[in-house]
């Protein structure tokens, strides 16, 4: 990874040396900020997939281990966030295009709705049982 890409781009030295980077992060920026060369190291799709995988696994482990109901909710938020990151990364790097971003917007809206309902249920549970420990909610077991 080219950590010195920023200052090298400003001074233009790397550009004069003939280093041509793949155009991965140019959102019309060269038109918007003219005079600055584009020396952009490639951040690959796999990196975003790794981050999303870590978010997903953290959310699953959080859902499985937390005994606080609100902790379980936070695990759900982490899982949905990892899925969102995958959607946006595929929207950026494949021909999925804007569809992935639309899907991630739907996921955000559904996550907000789910959090509202689940918090209302958690508050009702707390009002009835005077605890938020999910291990105590075992009245429905067979």
């Amino acid at each position, binding site marked *: 990874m080219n950590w010195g890409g920023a200052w090298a781009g400003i001074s233009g030295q790397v550009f004069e040396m003939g280093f041509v980077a793949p155009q991965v992060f140019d959102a019309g920026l060269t038109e918007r900020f003219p005079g600055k060369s584009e020396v952009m190291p490639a951040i690959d799709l796999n990196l975003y997939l790794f981050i999303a995988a870590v978010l997903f696994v953290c959310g699953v482990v959080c859902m499985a281990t937390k005994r*606080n109901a609100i902790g379980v909710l936070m695990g759900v938020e982490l899982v949905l966030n990892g899925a969102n990151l995958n959607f946006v990364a595929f929207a950026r790097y494949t021909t999925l295009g804007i569809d992935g*971003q639309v899907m991630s917007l739907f996921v955000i809206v559904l996550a907000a709705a789910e959090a509202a309902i689940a918090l209302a249920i958690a508050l009702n549970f707390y009002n009835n049982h005077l605890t938020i420990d999910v291990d105590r909610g075992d009245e429905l077991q067979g």
Partner: protein
Amino acid sequence: MSWLASLVDLFFWLFHDGAFWIFAITTVAAAVAVVVSQNVVRMAFWLILSLGATAGLFFSLNADFVGSAQLLVYVGGTLVLLIFGVMLTASGPFVGIKTKPGELVMAGGVGALLLSLILYSACAVDWRNAGQFDSKGVVAAGYNSPTEGNTTRTLGLSLMGARPDKDLGSTRQLLTSGYLLPFEIVSVHLLVVLVGAAYLARAKRRKSPSAPSSPA
């Protein structure tokens, strides 16, 4: 709004690679901290950090509107809701309900196995030669003016059912379908959910016969 977008763009233009690594490491480390920490309030704080850094990753993926929505809805809305839930339920001993250490070890092992499975299967695909790879991204269409972000107009039009990003200059006879019906369904769903949440979370009426009709 336009100056904000160009400020974000300038930040990423200057620090593109370093900003990605900062946001990536913050996202991952804060997500792990959410799992590890036992205090609910600290978990909420780490979740704020993780979701905010994910919004930064969205910005680095050229998804400016999704990143803004992430900041507004998640960090601004959902987490305030979560913190209210923490404050309403965290009384004394319930702030830190401990998990048993054996369960933590087992969950860590299962989580590591799951993570290695996902990473292995993600690495097993050669995305660049999978046939769908497109390094130009979604900003190729030329009808977004430079001062209003890259995806706002495209997203809005596709939610209204029009797809100029696929249909402009296309030789196909059929128009690409948009997202008008899912958008309407999600709108009504959100309304119903909010009414239902207000109904569920309202204060209960007391059942004692001494005060039969006093709303609590």
